[in-house]
């Protein structure tokens, strides 16, 4: 929990010595609260106050970074319980589990296919984040070989699931130079695991059956010099994981409880009686950090990745659609040309409606900085000049022969100006609401 300027002021020497180049300690405190200066700029701060300030300014959930041969995943640094309060910052990493007792050739093929998986969602490239390689055989050589095979087949980051220190060592040797996540330390093996993770400088998962034991373990690991930890609270299915993950998020964000201020790892496909995709969806919405899935299935992965994208969209910055002229139902040069803005929801509403009419059409999506029609118009981002400019830039003249363009009904006021901007074009005024596009075209467009 960040401190306010006044709270920081109370911890400062309050001498107004100006050594920090600010006129008063209060002015410096305000700058510090706004993160515009650093604490070290005050040469007179006491050690005790420095420690308090440093811990207060640390994020409530530690940021954990993984790196593969090429590509990285960052999870943590979350500050809120609900996305509308600010935003969720770091999308949970989705990892596919593979085991070293699988047939090596089949495994290589699976890794290649999953690695290549990529799907375009409103211009955003969605893909799997990496692989969780499990030492299921219990044999160090076999694990090493499998980790090497996965690295050969994918540059994405890895999670190494190795319950025994010897296996962990073997896996890390094969992944030398990378930054995988090591799974997992528990009450029995934590000392050995801690030393291995520390030597390799990789983050370590802490596994415990309840939060009391978990907090004890993270404390011990921190005392041993480990800072990058991830929690596996063994949270089971829908209900238990909802309760545990919610509690962990509240402890970190609201209670500022440091011993459990780390991202969570979960295995939604390995829980009895749970539907892997629905439980994965729950973990995406409700506080999952690293999510290990068991099945690679594009028809499931695609919607899950879209969900993750949606939940982690900054509510202040709506998803935008690439401006351009979009084809709907295979239009010809006789088909109507309609205009809207590049706010994704506006675009979807209009495009879906036109598609639903079964009539072919062109949709000019103007660059209105991601605002809806009325908002953009009010903000001066969707005016005749902008529409004319985009119509020309995206080649409206080459797409249609009729030289007619249909404006959203809400901005009928623009038609005069648009006539001036687009000489020789007929400006038509369409309906105000998307739902009326069908009847409008039926009445107004004979083609």
């Amino acid at each position: 929990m960040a401190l306010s300027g006044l709270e920081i002021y109370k911890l400062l020497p309050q001498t107004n010595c100006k050594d920090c180049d600010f006129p008063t300690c209060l002015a410096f405190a305000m700058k510090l609260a706004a993160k515009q200066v650093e604490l070290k700029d005050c040469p007179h701060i006491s050690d005790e106050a420095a420690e308090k300030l440093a811990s207060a300014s640390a994020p409530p959930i530690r940021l954990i970074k993984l790196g593969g041969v090429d590509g990285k995943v960052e999870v943590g640094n979350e500050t809120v319980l609900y996305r509308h309060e600010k935003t969720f910052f770091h999308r949970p990493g989705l990892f596919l589990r593979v085991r070293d007792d699988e047939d090596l050739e089949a495994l290589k093929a699976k890794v290649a296919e999953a690695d290549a998986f990529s799907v375009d969602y409103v211009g955003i490239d969605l893909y799997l984040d990496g692989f969780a390689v499990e030492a299921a055989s219990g044999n160090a050589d076999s694990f090493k070989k499998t980790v090497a095979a996965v690295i050969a087949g994918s540059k994405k980051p890895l999670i190494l699931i190795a319950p025994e220190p010897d296996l962990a060592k073997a896996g890390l040797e094969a992944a030398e130079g990378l930054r995988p996540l090591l799974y997992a330390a528990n009450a029995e093996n934590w000392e050995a695991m801690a030393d291995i993770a520390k030597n390799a400088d990789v983050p370590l998962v802490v596994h415990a059956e309840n939060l009391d034991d978990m907090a004890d373990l993270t404390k011990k690991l921190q005392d041993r010099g480990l800072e990058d930890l991830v929690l596996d609270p063994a949270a089971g299915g829908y209900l238990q994981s909802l309760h545990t993950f919610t509690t962990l998020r509240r402890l970190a964000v609201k209670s500022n409880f440091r011993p459990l201020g780390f991202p969570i790892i979960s295995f939604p496909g390995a829980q009895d009686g749970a539907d892997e995709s629905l439980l994965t969806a729950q973990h995406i919405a409700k506080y999952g950090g690293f999510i290990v899935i068991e099945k690679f299935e594009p028809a499931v992965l695609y919607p899950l990745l879209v969900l993750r994208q949606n939940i982690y969209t900054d509510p202040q910055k709506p998803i935008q659609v690439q401006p351009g002229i979009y084809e709907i139902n295979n239009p010809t040069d006789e088909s109507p040309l309609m205009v809207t803005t590049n706010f994704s929801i506006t675009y979807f509403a209009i495009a879906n409606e036109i598609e639903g009419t079964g009539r072919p059409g062109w949709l000019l999506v103007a660059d209105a900085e991601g605002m809806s029609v009325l908002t953009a118009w009010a903000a001066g981002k969707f005016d005749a000049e902008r529409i004319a400019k985009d119509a020309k830039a995206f080649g409206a003249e080459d797409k249609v022969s009729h030289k007619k363009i249909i404006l959203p009904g809400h901005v009928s006021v623009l038609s005069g100006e648009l006539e001036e901007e687009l000489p020789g074009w007929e400006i038509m005024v369409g309906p105000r609401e998307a739902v009326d596009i069908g009847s409008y075209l039926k009445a107004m467009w004979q083609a």
Partner: protein
Amino acid sequence: MTVEIPKEKWSGQVREVTIGATAEDGGTRTQTLTIGGETTLPFLHFEGSIPHRPALAIEIRDRKPDDWSPILLETWGEAMESPAAWAKAAEEAGADLIYLVLSLTTADGEENTPENARRVVREVLDATGLPLAVAGPGQADVDNELIVPVAEEAEGERILLGICEEGNYRTIVAAALANNHLVQSKTPMDVNLSKQLVILISDMGIPLERIVMDPTTGALGYGIEYGYSVMERLRLAALQGDSMTQQPMLVDPGAEAWKVKESKVGEGVPESWGDWQNRALEWEALTASSLVQSGADLLVLRHPDTLKRVKAMIDALLATTA
């Protein structure tokens, strides 16, 4: 180390709303449906009570729709030829409520009529003992023309009448008042608009126990995050004691999910979208399950498999003894 589990103290409670009336209460339903009543966020049993489970409705039409996904047509098959058969099939699929939507036109392209609407509602009421919701085709004048006679036909059954919107709610609320029904109050993904319409509707004299609030959602990938967050904000406001946000929430992930390209179209789409049937079902299930997490009390679905999956999830989330 003993970790203290943080618990929120909520002062508010979601209103309980009961749809349907049995013979005892002047109707003919064999069961009723009560939703709402929560005193905490979804499934956080450790800090409040959740007296009623989120309910699942199946949408049926007064006739076989022209524009539904072939996957849905194949699933319901023959049953779609008659609203009564469709309602029965939905009951067998495990629906808690039948959500009947009247079409703009009849199968031969004629305008739908009050007589036809009455006939269909009577058939559905006779075919199933489940509680019923009835909505018009979504054009204000036609909605009013059809919903008034439907309200009369179903007098005393305490059905849920849709859909009251800011520009058109008076006639429907009056019909609900006159015939002892409930209303669905729908607003476009906005907390304040939601509250405002509930106020306007209750100002007409209908008790708050007869209003279900529909904050509207988008499908997965098509604006679900707006609906999701508006629902979370409405529910937080309700628990903090803001009276006009305390209506149980209805959302329609079925209609939203089945109108997007991912579920409607099987050809000419990217290979990475995967198997069409699976993808379409995932689209509806993930849309619905996410809205269960954000506080939905009643969800309208279209595919029976989605209903099964979401129901199993809700069962698990309510299994407090586990």
